């Protein structure tokens, strides 16, 4: 008993110095990871922002300047504007497709009672998500090539007489993007479905709503936050997609991220690569912020 009291006394006496020590430990525990992120990512990004105002000097990397000509070049060149619009279009289409395909899957998953099946299906979504784009690309080439599985099956069934070109077209990229992004959408949606009690559905149905009406009038408003965050995630990831357009879109299908890579590493035009990277980030950010504001106005804070 005395020992405890004594211990408490020492404890409170030590408090002021402990608080000071607390700040020191806080800092020293955070410092290594903060230094890594600041030096390994933030400084390079700031440096690249600065480079985007430099002038390209072929053969000598670049000359220091403070010009907007790289940005002007991007926005006045029909080719690059086209690349930007194609990227936006692909992102929009694949996000909508992910939403449409993801809704039933997430709902089914969320209401599934069989535990092992639920675990298996979640793994079946998460494993492809983390499989890496190289493996996925091999799969899509096998499936979509002129002599790929899909064409062969369709010809065998007599649906097609000659193979259709799917691989190395925009359609292949759309299919690839949808499959890459679906897991993110399903996981976002499943989280909100889990939070909506089944009694809402039962109430609506017992009051005579048909399933589809119940879905539209009861479930949909309740899961709006999940729909929004899922779409946002898919859209941002699609905007920045690199591997899918390069590997299954082929050399003549251009999207933003592959162009940034090309300018930075192949052409070595760093100022232009840098300005394209920032155009890509700025456009993505502007659109997502606008969308959140518009949705907030319509649905309240989500």
């Amino acid at each position: 008993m005395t020992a405890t009291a004594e211990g408490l006394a020492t404890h409170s006496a030590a408090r002021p110095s402990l608080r000071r020590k607390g700040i020191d430990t806080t800092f020293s525990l955070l410092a290594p990871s903060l230094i890594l992120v600041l030096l390994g990512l933030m400084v390079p990004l700031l440096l690249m922002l600065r480079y985007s105002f430099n002038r390209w000097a072929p053969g000598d990397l670049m000359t220091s300047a403070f010009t907007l000509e790289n940005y002007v070049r991007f926005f006045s060149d029909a080719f690059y504007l086209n690349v930007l619009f194609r990227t936006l279009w692909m992102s929009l289409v694949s996000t909508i497709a992910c939403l449409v395909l993801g809704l039933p899957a997430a709902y089914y998953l969320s209401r599934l009672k069989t535990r092992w099946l639920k675990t298996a299906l979640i793994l079946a979504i998460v494993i492809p998500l983390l499989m890496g784009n190289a493996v996925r690309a091999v799969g899509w080439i096998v499936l979509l090539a002129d002599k790929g599985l899909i064409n062969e099956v369709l010809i065998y069934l007599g649906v097609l007489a000659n193979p259709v070109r799917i691989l190395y077209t925009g359609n292949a990229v759309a299919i690839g993007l949808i499959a890459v992004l679906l897991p993110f959408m399903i996981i976002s949606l499943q989280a909100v479905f889990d939070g909506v009690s089944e009694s809402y559905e039962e109430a609506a149905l017992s009051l005579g709503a048909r399933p589809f009406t119940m879905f539209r009038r009861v479930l949909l408003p309740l899961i709006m936050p999940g729909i929004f965050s899922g779409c946002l995630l898919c859209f941002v990831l699609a905007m920045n997609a690199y591997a899918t357009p390069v590997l299954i879109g082929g050399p003549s299908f251009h999207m933003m991220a592959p162009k940034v890579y090309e300018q930075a590493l192949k052409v070595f035009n760093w100022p232009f690569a840098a300005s394209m990277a920032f155009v890509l980030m700025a456009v993505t950010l502007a659109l997502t912020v606008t969308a959140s504001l518009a949705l907030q106005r319509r649905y309240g804070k989500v």
Partner: protein
Amino acid sequence: MTALAASLSRWRRGSTVKIAAYFTFFIVLAPLLAVIWVSFFENKIIGFPPTGYTLKWFVNAWNFERFHRGFTLSVQVGLIATAASLLIGVPAALVLARKKFAGHEIVHSLLMSPLIVPGIVAGAAIFMFFIEVEIFLNDQMHVELPLTGSLFGLCLAHTLLALPWTVRLVTASLIGMDRRIEEAAMSLGATPWRAFWRVTLPVIRPGIVAGALFSFVISFVDLEKSIFLVGPGRTTLPIEMVNYLEWNIDPTIAAVATMQTLLIAAALIISDRFFNLTRAF
């Protein structure tokens, strides 16, 4: 009520929702299933149906020097990045989960930023930064320190990739932990360090294991950052695969992809035993 429950379960398990759900699962899984199937084909030129099945492509892939080296490097980089991200990420998670301080929000966003900055943009920025540092060291200090194409540079970038996952998963398990058991240990005379080592660490082990496995997986499959940082003779497996794909598509590459799939599936199935995987996202 029974009629209602029946009607509800009919709509739920009802053909439309179920078929749509499985169609979606199939789209997600299709490329993977195709890869695994083709890797057993006997014919060297992929065609359907196969003439027979064989395991020889796995042997072939394993003996193919570029894949073998790429695999070794990827494992090496993955392990180093995982260890480094645990070493710096667990202390950071400890602070983030438990202390309130000015700038908490900023620190958290900073540590999560490698997830938010697009891979290609971050890769390009790190690449330019590394080259600038190389030039600076060479001109000013006459030191030759290769960063691009070096193991060090690759590991640094991969630690950056892994860090947010480690922090997120470890923080999640720390928040779920009852702090009183730690206080009990200290009131019984354990030093803070001993209390951390003997009490906190075992409790948050699931988060740490899942964080480590996730970090490894994220590092192993990365393409966007590595593509800027690999060098001649030092190329990770995914990039070796991409390079190979430029020229040919055959069962050998499918076998490599299948092996990577199995490795990563194993890592994820193990981490699912420790940690609810959907909570990681």
